[in-house]
C-alpha cells in the first residue's frame, strides 16, 4: 500500500479516527499491529525481517548494557549481523558479480549459483536505525529500551519503508502515544500529507516520463548539451519532489497520531555550498553518516587534512553505495565527496591567503552556482543505466555537443516550471504562514485551509497514476 494509494488514504482516515478513540494504554499495540499489517500489505514473506533485525539489535544492546567489558565486541558483532543481513539481501548480486569479474581477470571462472532474493522494502532504512541504536547504547545515549519499544520504533509505519531515518532517542520517548488530541496535530499532519500527495502526483510523476525518455541508453549519444543539462535538471527535480513528497507524507501521517518525525529536506537546491546541500538533502541520512561514520573516523585523526579528505571521499562513496548496489551510485557519492573536498580546500585557503575573498559577493554567488551545477551534473551517474552511458552524457555537459533542444518543447517547459516551484517553495510557505497569521481563526479554519487542501487533493486526484512507485523504495 503506497502512501499515495486510495486504499491507504481512506484507511489512514479510519485508522487515525480509531487511534484517538482508543484508550492510550492500547494505542501501542494498535500501532504495532497496524505497522505489521502495512508492511505485510507489500509482501507478507518479509514481515519477519525487520523484527529479526530488531531482535538481534535488542539482544546485542542488552549485552552492551549489561556487560560493559564486552561492549566493544558486542557492538561489533551486532553491527556485523545487521550488515550481513543487509549485504545478503541488497548487495549479494553486486558483490558476487564484482568478485566474479575480479577473479576473471586472473583467469578463474568459478561456478557461482544464482540465488534470487527480492529486495525487502525499507531494509536500508531499518538496518541503519538498528545500527544507530547499537552505537547509541554503547555510547550510553540510550539506556532502557524494551523489545516492544524497539519493535514499535523500527516498524512504525510512517517511516518504515523509506525513512526519515529516526533515532531511538528521538522516537521512543514519544511512543507512549499518551499525548491528548490537539487540533494542531491534524492541521500539521494534513499540511504535510496533502503537500506530499500533490508533489508526488503533479510534479514528480509528470517529470518521470520525460526523464525516462532522455535517459534511454540509445539517447545518450544523440542528446545535445542542452538536452543533457535539462535531463539532469529534470531528474534532480523528479527525485527531489518524489522523495520530499514521501517524507512529507510520512511526517504528516506520524503527526496525525501525535508523533513528530525529523525533517528530511530543507529546500536543497537553495544550498549555497556543497556542505550546505548535505545539510538540506536527505538530512536524516546525512546526520547518520556524519555522526556514526564521519565524526568517529576524524576523531581518530584529529582533523588532519589528508585523512579528512580521504574520509570525506570514503564516506560519500558509502552514501552512494547505501542507495543501491551499483557503481553509478558509488560514482555519484564520490563526486559529492570531491565537491566537499574542494569546498574544504577553499575554506582552508580562505582562512589566510584568500581571506579578503571569503565574503565577496562574487565568490558567494560562484559557490552557489557551482553547487547547483555540480549537484545537478552528479545526478547523471545516479540515474544512467550504465557507467558508459553516464560518461557519454557527462562529457556532453562540458564539451559542446550541439545546443539545439531536440525533444518536444513541453519537456523543457515542464522542467522549467518544476524548477520554478522548487525555487519558490520556501517563499510560498512564508507567504502562506503570513496569510494564516493575519486571517481570523474561523476563516482560516473553515475557508482558507480547506480550500488549499481541496486544491491539493484535486491535483493529486486528477494526476493519479497507480503504477508509479516512489524512487526511494528501491533503496
Amino acid at each position, binding site marked *: *500500500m*503506497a502512501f499515495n*494509494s*486510495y*486504499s491507504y488514504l*481512506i484507511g489512514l*482516515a479510519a485508522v487515525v479516527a480509531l487511534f*484517538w478513540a482508543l484508550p492510550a494504554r492500547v494505542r501501542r499495540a494498535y500501532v504495532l499491529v497496524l505497522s505489521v499489517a502495512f508492511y*505485510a*500489505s*507489500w*509482501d*507478507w*514473506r518479509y514481515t519477519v525481517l525487520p523484527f529479526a533485525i530488531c531482535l538481534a539489535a535488542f539482544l546485542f544492546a542488552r549485552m552492551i548494557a549489561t556487560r560493559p567489558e564486552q561492549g566493544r565486541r558486542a557492538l561489533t558483532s551486532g553491527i556485523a549481523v545487521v550488515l550481513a543481513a543487509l549485504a545478503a539481501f541488497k548487495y549479494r548480486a553486486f558483490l558476487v558479480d564484482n568478485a566474479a569479474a575480479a577473479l576473471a581477470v586472473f583467469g578463474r571462472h568459478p561456478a557461482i549459483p544464482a540465488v534470487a532474493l*527480492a*529486495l*525487502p*522494502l525499507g531494509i536500508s532504512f531499518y538496518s541503519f536505525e538498528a545500527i544507530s541504536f547499537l552505537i547509541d547504547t554503547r555510547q550510553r545515549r540510550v539506556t532502557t529500551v524494551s523489545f516492544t519499544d524497539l519493535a514499535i520504533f523500527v516498524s512504525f509505519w510512517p517511516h518504515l519503508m523509506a525513512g526519515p531515518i529516526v533515532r531511538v532517542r528521538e522516537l521512543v520517548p514519544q511512543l507512549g502515544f499518551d499525548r491528548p*488530541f490537539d*487540533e494542531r496535530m*491534524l*492541521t500539521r499532519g*494534513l499540511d504535510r500529507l496533502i503537500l506530499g500527495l500533490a508533489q508526488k502526483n503533479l510534479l514528480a510523476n509528470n517529470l518521470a*516520463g520525460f526523464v*525516462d*525518455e532522455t535517459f*534511454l*541508453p*540509445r*539517447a545518450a549519444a*544523440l*542528446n545535445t548539451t542542452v*538536452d543533457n543539462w535539462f535531463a539532469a535538471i529534470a531528474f534532480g527535480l523528479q527525485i527531489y519532489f518524489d522523495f520530499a513528497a514521501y517524507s512529507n507524507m510520512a511526517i504528516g501521517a506520524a503527526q496525525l497520531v501525535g508523533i513528530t518525525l525529523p525533517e528530511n529536506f530543507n529546500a536543497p537546491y537553495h544550498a549555497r555550498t556543497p556542505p550546505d546541500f548535505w545539510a538540506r538533502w536527505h538530512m536524516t541520512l546525512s546526520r547518520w553518516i556524519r555522526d556514526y561514520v564521519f565524526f568517529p573516523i576524524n576523531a581518530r585523526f584529529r582533523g588532519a587534512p589528508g585523512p579528512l579528505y580521504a574520509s570525506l571521499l570514503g564516506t560519500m562513496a558509502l552514501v552512494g553505495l547505501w542507495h543501491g548496489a551499483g557503481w553509478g551510485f558509488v560514482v555519484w557519492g564520490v563526486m559529492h565527496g570531491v565537491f566537499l573536498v574542494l569546498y574544504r580546500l577553499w575554506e582552508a585557503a580562505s582562512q589566510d591567503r584568500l581571506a579578503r575573498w571569503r565574503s565577496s559577493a562574487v565568490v558567494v554567488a560562484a559557490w552557489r552556482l557551482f553547487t547547483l551545477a555540480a549537484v545537478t551534473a552528479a545526478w547523471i551517474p545516479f540515474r544512467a543505466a550504465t557507467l558508459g552511458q553516464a560518461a557519454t552524457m557527462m562529457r556532453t555537459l562540458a564539451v559542446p555537443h550541439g545546443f*539545439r533542444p*531536440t*525533444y*518536444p*518543447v*513541453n519537456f523543457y*517547459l515542464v522542467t522549467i516550471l518544476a524548477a520554478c516551484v522548487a525555487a519558490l517553495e520556501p517563499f510560498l510557505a512564508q507567504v502562506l504562514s503570513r496569510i494564516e497569521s493575519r486571517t481570523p481563526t474561523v476563516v482560516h*479554519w*473553515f475557508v482558507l*485551509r*480547506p*480550500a488549499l*487542501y*481541496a*486544491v491539493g*487533493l*484535486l*491535483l493529486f*486526484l*486528477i*494526476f*493519479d497514476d*497507480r*503504477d508509479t*512507485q516512489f524512487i526511494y*523504495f*528501491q533503496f
Partner: protein
Amino acid sequence: MRAAARSAGLVATTLGLTVWLLSIDPFARVNAVLDAAFAAAPAWTQVSSLVRDPRTQEVSHGEHPAQGLRALAAYWRERPTALKAVLLGNSQMFAMSLAPGEARSREDERTYPDIVAAHFAPRGVLCYRLAAPGLSYSEALWYVDFLLTHPGLRPDVLLVQVNYQAFWNGGVRSSFAELLEDAAFRRQVETRAQSDASYAEDFRGALAEFDRGRGAAAAGNAAAPAAFGRRIEDATRLRLDRLDVFRRRAAEKDSFDEMLYRGRLYLLGIKPSTARSISGPRLIRNQEALDALANACEAAGVKLVVFKAPVNPRVSLYASDADRIRFERYMATLPSSRHLKIVDFEHAVPADLWGRQYNSPDPLHMGRRAHGLVAAHVIVALSESLVSGQ
C-alpha cells in the same frame, strides 16, 4: 470535544470542497476565459459531430484499440474476397477544423477516410481508418505489427500518413498496451524490443508498463505476487470508479493540461504552427520505425503507400531550409529502397480551406472542402495501388 468537532468540520469542509471542485471542472472555466481573452476561434469550428462507423474506423482513436480491431477482424472475416485497405495516421484523419465561410452542419461530418471508404465500398474494397492523435511511427509500427500477426487483419494496401512534425512524437502510449494480451503479437513486440533498433526502447517501455500494470512487477523488484495491498487497492478503485464525480478526474486532467497548453500558446507564443527543427533521438527512432514498417509490409506482401500529409500553406513548420531539405531527403530514400509508392499531398490544399486552432492557423486540421479535396487525391493513389503492382 471541541477540538474533535472542529477537526471533523475541517475534514468535512475539505472533502466537500474537493467534491465540488471535481464536479465543476474549474480548469475548463479558466480555459473559456483564456479563449475569450485571446480571441480564439469559436469552439464550434472544431467539429465534434463526425460520422462514427466501427466497420470503417477505429472509433476510440487509440484509447481502446483492441475492441475496434476485434470488431474489424470479425467484419472482414465475413468478406473474405473483398480487397482491404487501411489508412494509418494521426488526428488529421478524424478531425475537422472548419475554414472561414464554412457553416456548421446539422449532419455528422465526414473526414477524408470516410469519403474514401464510401467511394470504394460499392467497388468491393473495404477501407479502415486506424488513427490516433499525435501518432508516432513507433506506434504506427506497433499497429502494423498487430495487423500483420493476424491473417484476418492483413490489408492488401496500407496507406501511411507522414507529417514532418510527427517525427517529433515519441513512445508508445499506454492505451496501446492492451493489444499485448494477444500472445502472437506480444511475441512480435518482444522480438522488436530485443532488437538493436532505436525504437526498441519504445517497445521495451511499453512492455514494461504493461507488465507493471498487471502487477507482475509492481513496486520495483520488491513486491510479491501475493501482495494483498494491491488487491485492496484494486477493490477500492473499483468501488470509487462507480462514483460519477470520481470518474470525472480524467476529463478534469485534460482541462488542466489544456490550461497549461493555452498558457504555452497565449503567453509564450509557442503554437502548433511554430516552426521547429527536428533532430536527435526522437527523429532517429521515428525514422527507424518507419523503415521497419516498410520492411514488414514488404515481407508480408502488403502494398504500401506513404503520403506526405497536407500542411496549411499559411504556416511553415520547418525552422530552416536545412530542416526541410533533411526531411525531403529522408522521404526520397524511402521509395528507392522499398517497393512502395510515395505520394506528396503537402501542398494539395489551398490556404483558404484551413481553419484556425485557438488563435492561430491550424497547421494540421482541415475544413470540410479540404477533406473532400484530399479524399479525391487519396482515391486516385489508392486506385492505382489496388490495380497495379505499385
